[in-house]
């Protein structure tokens, strides 16, 4: 069993607990792992990555549209999370929500700084006829928050889903979406408002709490 010890000015601290079987980390809650990561425990951070790397990468891939950019985004976001782990406050929401919001915010920053080439691609997609909710929301699985979210979105009118997608995943502002879809800005705002409201109502109607 590996142990480590640091001596400085007469202060000696053993870190043997940090070098033990990784299995014990798997028993800890995200918030506790975040506290450990915040004080520099890379193994706790690795466990957090193993728990949330997949949804983070999936979100990044959905936003960036290609693998390398998604990897770069996830790496940048998780480095930010590592450096800022000590600033995480559980009262502001779950660890997963916090992590995904960092991926999302950084993804939006990147999307807004890239050339118009990718944006034109989106424009073509956005202009395509809308008859069904996008593939992203087609699959319905049970017994998971992810499935519930997908179910909620599958109940929305496609035009509301499209506006939410362009805003959340593609990083467009509401004014840009209005221009892209040739809609009045008020209509775009209305679809955003109704879309979010219906997601909320979906959860409320099933007695489910919207996770923080």
């Amino acid at each position, binding site marked *: 069993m590996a142990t*480590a010890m*640091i001596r*400085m000015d007469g*202060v000696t*601290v053993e*870190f043997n*607990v*940090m070098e*033990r079987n*990784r*299995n*014990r980390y798997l*028993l*800890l809650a995200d918030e*506790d792992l975040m*506290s*450990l990561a915040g*004080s*520099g*425990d*890379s*193994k706790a951070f690795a466990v957090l*990555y193993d728990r949330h*790397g*997949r949804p*983070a*990468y999936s*979100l990044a*891939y*959905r936003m960036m549209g290609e693998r390398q950019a998604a*990897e770069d985004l*996830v*790496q940048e976001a998780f*480095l930010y999370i*590592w*450096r800022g782990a000590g600033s995480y406050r559980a009262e502001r*929401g779950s660890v997963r*929500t916090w992590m*995904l*919001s960092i*991926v*999302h915010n950084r993804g939006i920053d990147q999307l807004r700084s890239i050339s118009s080439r990718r944006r034109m691609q989106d424009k073509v997609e956005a202009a395509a006829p809308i008859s069904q909710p996008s593939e*992203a*929301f087609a699959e319905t699985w049970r017994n998971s928050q*992810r499935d519930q*979210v997908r179910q*909620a979105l599958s109940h929305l009118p496609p035009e509301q889903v499209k506006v*939410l997608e362009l*805003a*959340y995943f593609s*990083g*467009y*502002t*509401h004014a840009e979406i209005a221009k892209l879809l040739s809609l009045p800005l008020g209509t775009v705002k209305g679809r*955003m408002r109704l879309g*979010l409201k219906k*997601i909320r109502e979906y959860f409320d109607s099933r007695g489910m709490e*919207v*996770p*923080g």
Partner: protein
Amino acid sequence: MNEQWRRRFDDLKDAYSLGALDDDERREFDGYLAEHPELQAEVDELNSVANLLALAPPEYDPPPELRRNLLQRIGGAEEDAALPGRAPRRAGLRRLFGPAGLAAAAAILAVVGLFIWNASLREENEDLRGEIETRQAYELHGSGQAEDVQGEVVELGRGRAILMAENLPPAPDGKVYEAWLIHDGVPEPAGTFHSQDGQAATRIEGSLEGADAVAVTVEPSGGSSMPTSEPLLTASL
């Protein structure tokens, strides 16, 4: 509240939660929110709904090299990382003592002088010591059937702590392990937990500040308000 501003708030709040305001609008909204903290809860609730969208995309496994690269970047190559410690600071020390770092340090010394360098090192030392001290671990001692248990209570700072143990047999049927914070000989319940495959890890409920010891007993399922058995594990704080 100014009605015109309230209308503006309502007009922008959904786009704000979706990240769909332009920079000027976002600054305007943030400024308004700062002046009206009573609206924060409304915004938080909208954010929580908008954040659900992050879970909607089809799932893909990230490539293994992403994990490897990430852990290397933070100084914890592979999952069995070396010494814990804040990567940026340790990287700073490595830079200082590495070949390239030495050259750089020599150049810096020539300019700013030994005194400043010493002061800087001392400050870094203090920071590191502060971090280390917030990670103080207290060894758990087992007795009876828990004699072979190895474990620690690890203090995370601000009184928060976790208890980690190994070689801990499962609690008997209908029983759980319960942690206690001991103040002047008086135990306070600090949470129940189980052992899985000989491993246990749980958060200590309550603050370590002012406590003399942490103890673990076997209690009826659901836990007890006062211990009903002798301590199996103890850690003096």
